């Protein structure tokens, strides 16, 4: 007669009432799978000892660990490679950007300078025109009132107006003493 293995019987019967069992907390399951010790993992270990479902989940969690670690590394590598590629793509843009910046700045400065010169020129034109007109139309002093001040300052000037000269000789026609 074939004798059954005790372990076989134990596993079979400890899985019979899985539907009625309280399911484990994921954190406690992970902690126990990683060999951590604490109150929650001790309680869970007691459940694992008498529940096939808990034992299967614990075994599954342990088997999952290396695969999950591998996926983590692969994801990191993929994302790093992608971001490195993006940086490579961006590098020429970065080197070109300052040149364009300088050109842009120089252009802006030149344009600004031109505008400033133009504005200055226009303003100067507006300012100088009235001055010239004013200068050109400078009123000549009235000759009537300028007579007194127009005396020659040098002695070699021409003759003064006879009519006002002190040595004016009266008309001889009306001079009675002359005869």
């Amino acid at each position, binding site marked *: *007669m*074939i*004798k*059954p*293995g*005790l*372990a076989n*019987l*134990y*596993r079979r*019967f*400890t*899985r*019979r009432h*899985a*539907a*009625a069992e309280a*399911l*484990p907390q*994921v*954190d406690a*399951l*992970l902690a*126990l*799978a990683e*060999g951590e*010790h604490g109150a929650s*993992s001790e309680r869970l*270990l*007691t459940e*694992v*000892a*008498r529940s*096939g*479902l808990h*034992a*299967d*989940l614990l*075994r*599954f*969690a*342990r*088997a*999952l*660990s290396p*695969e*999950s*670690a591998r*996926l*983590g590394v*692969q*994801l*990191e590598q*993929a*994302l790093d490679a*992608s971001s490195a590629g993006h940086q490579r793509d961006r590098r020429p843009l970065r080197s070109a950007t300052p040149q364009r910046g300088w050109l842009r700045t120089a252009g802006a400065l030149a344009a600004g300078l031109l505008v400033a010169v133009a504005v200055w020129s226009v303003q100067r034109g507006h300012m100088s025109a009235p001055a010239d007109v004013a200068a050109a139309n400078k009123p000549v002093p009235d000759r009537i009132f300028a007579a007194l001040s127009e005396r020659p300052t040098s002695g070699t000037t021409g003759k003064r107006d006879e009519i006002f000269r002190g040595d004016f000789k009266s008309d001889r026609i009306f001079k009675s003493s002359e005869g």
Partner: protein
Amino acid sequence: MSIDPALRQRLHQLLRDYGAKVRALIEGHGLGQYGIDPADIEQEVRIRLWKALERDRNAAFHTSFIQRVVLTTVIDAIRAANARPVDPLPEAGETGDLAFVEPTAGPERSASGIEDFDRIMACMAELPERRRKAVALHLQGFSLREIGEFSGTSEEAARKLLDRGMETLRERLVVAGFGEFDD
């Protein structure tokens, strides 16, 4: 987060590969017996991990995070399966564990019955706690190294606990009329 097409394709490929491994592990560890569909778990894990990647790239890198996603998915699925209405249990006399219980049956058939299992459990309950736990973990299929790791002892200490526990259990089982079991 915008992901360029090449990276998106690479990430999807990685998650597909991982999902296939998760599915194989579920099947290999007999979790399908708890009413879950490994293909559904595979798909759900991929969806959850992709959403996590879209939400926060760094979060998805940690091993424990990835494991937590998978375990949560599996446990949620088992909970959902447990909540579903089940087929009625077979009547007494139909094929099932109860049908194997016969008064004249040997240890194999006697131990197949729930009542006998309860007696085995009663024998185990008489063991000191540390030995009982070592025996139970051994019967669940864990190695000495794992038993030591879970119990916070060395592999050698676990072996001693197990040897003494199994010796006592066999003695109790003989006394209880079960005879000897292969182990």
